[in-house]
């Protein structure tokens, strides 16, 4: 089955070596990084890696698109994709990541909430620093998960302060856990109403927390992810869930069967991210999101 996905990825590769979001248009960092991870040690992967190396900014970060003059949340994915192929580029990218952090509330919001504690609309600890989508903005779950995955993968090559950033990033993600488990983009409760989790974000958060100390949030979120998959059959949700459950030694055969049944739709839908993640999910030999030793069985 991975042959079908690898063929789809190969056909979608742009002449410049990168991948676009949906097989048409400009090459983009996130899609290219995920395709490189999925294509493993092939020639297309090498060309994709060259595209990534060529588009790294002087500050070590990657833009979301080459035409956008901004650093971005896609940097940890590029770091991960290049960690073995272009270690110096991955290293500078990871060091850039270490210097980034989401902004907490500004002084006037802190003052407001101190003066009017009952007006606190969103229940989260804004002083916990994770990673933002865009520099100098708030921390959110998905960019924090990507940053944790990249930093943990390269941990041995990074300075000692990495441990503190990882620890706080993990605490930030745990702080954003939805009541009942799982994660959405990063708000669990707003104006006294619970918000619901998403399977893709939940799986990513759990992947990032794969070596974190076991706790109630993780166990309930694993259960919540199982339940979410009863209603969401997308290639993105299934593939990320498989990659996640494998890290937690949970059975994935049934999910793999469901993903295989949906492959034609996934390929037809044509989103590079889903095709690449599906290929990784159905590849039993490696998991690009696994780092270090862990055993939760």
């Amino acid at each position, binding site marked *: 089955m991975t042959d079908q996905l690898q063929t789809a990825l190969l056909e979608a590769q742009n002449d410049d070596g990168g991948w676009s*979001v*949906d097989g048409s*248009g*400009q090459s*983009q960092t*996130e899609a290219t990084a995920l395709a490189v991870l999925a294509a493993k040690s092939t020639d297309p992967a090498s060309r994709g890696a060259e595209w990534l190396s060529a588009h790294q900014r002087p500050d070590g970060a990657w833009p*979301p*698109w080459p*035409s*956008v*003059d*901004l650093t*971005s*949340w896609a940097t940890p994915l590029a770091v991960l994709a290049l960690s073995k192929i272009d270690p110096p580029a991955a290293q500078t990218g990871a060091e850039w990541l270490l210097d980034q952090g989401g*902004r907490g*509330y*500004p002084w*006037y*919001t802190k*003052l*407001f909430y101190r003066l*009017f504690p009952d*007006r606190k*609309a*969103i229940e989260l600890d*804004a002083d916990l620093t994770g990673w*933002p*989508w*865009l520099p100098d*903005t*708030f921390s*959110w779950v*998905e*960019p924090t998960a990507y940053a944790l995955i990249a930093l943990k993968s390269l941990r041995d090559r990074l300075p000692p302060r990495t441990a503190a950033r990882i620890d706080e990033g993990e605490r930030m993600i745990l702080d954003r856990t939805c009541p009942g488990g799982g994660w*959405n*983009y990063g708000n669990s409760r*707003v*104006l006294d*109403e619970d*918000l*619901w989790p*998403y*399977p*893709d974000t939940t799986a990513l958060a759990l992947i990032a927390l794969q070596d974190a100390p076991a706790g109630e949030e993780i166990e309930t979120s694993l259960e919540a992810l199982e339940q979410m998959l009863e*209603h*969401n*059959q*997308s*290639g*993105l*949700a299934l593939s990320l869930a498989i990659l996640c459950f494998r890290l937690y030694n949970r059975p994935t055969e049934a999910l793999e069967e469901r993903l295989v049944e949906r492959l034609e*739709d*996934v390929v037809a*839908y044509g*989103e590079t991210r*889903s095709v690449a993640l599906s290929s990784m999910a159905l590849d039993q030999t490696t998991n690009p999101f696994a780092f270090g030793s862990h055993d939760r069985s």
Partner: protein
Amino acid sequence: MIDRREFLKAASGAAVAAALPGCQQGERWHPAAFVKQPRSQVAIVPAASYERPLEETILTGLKLFRLDVNDRNVVLKPNFVEFDPQGVINTHPAVLAAAIEAFRRLGAREVIVAEGPGHRRDNEYLLSASGIGDVLADTGATFIDLNHDAVRRVALDSDYSGLRHLYLPETVLDADLFVSLPKMKTHHWAGVTLSMKNLFGIVPGSVYGWPKNLLHWAGIGDSILDINASIGVPRFNIVDGIVGMQGNGPIQGEPIHSGVMVFGADPVAVDATCARLMNIDPWKIGYLERADAFLGNLGDDVIEQIGEPVDRLQQDYRVLEHFQGIKATSRVTAG
């Protein structure tokens, strides 16, 4: 997150604002860029349900404005921020389908559906679960994910948010006609979300993330103004008010049957009319009040209702406690 404007307001901010740098109420837009019409037309068209003949209802509304879309590239931007099977968050698929066919019947060369969902990244799920995917399959319309569309850096023509520039999607910037197609909803931060607020969905997540939090940092109302001031293409607005959302919108409110669709080229006048239909005073919605200065008309004396009068179809939308102040003090009687 509460923004600076909300804080200053809560702290009786006029005096505080005057003492803070960057808060002077100077000119926030380029006068040459905005020529406000003295009057605007809006059409309220009754629509009891999402059953047929919705396409005829939309054609009726569009024909009132004699829109020339012949051989034009029309981009429809529904509100498609999130999905809840029990909720009424999004522009109804039937409205989208009817709008696609209506613009085609008026001669549009191409009708594109474009949206950048604000919360979720799983479009495969969103499209199939919401029914939008079926609409696209049935009509053959192209869907562009504005979160991942190619972008251009656009200098903002007004400066309320302080952002100065945004990367915006080429599908929107290159449209011959851009149609905002929102749901009529209350909004727990902005008061109401209608055709103007719907433009948050054109801000690309691939650059700015999910949710579009940069816009919250910069101030929701201020960002609404700057985006609406800056897309620079001909616009039209069609609001799905057949079943709206009241209370804790835009995601967790309750459905309320209003039985209307609202049409117009002036987004400020359309949103003002929708607010009045919701028994909300548009002058008390901060961004609408500021929009009246340069983007369009808010006053009911300069909005000509060419469809049904407001009072015939007005409903009393519930708002959250902290927005009680935006409710109209008396029911609208003017048409």
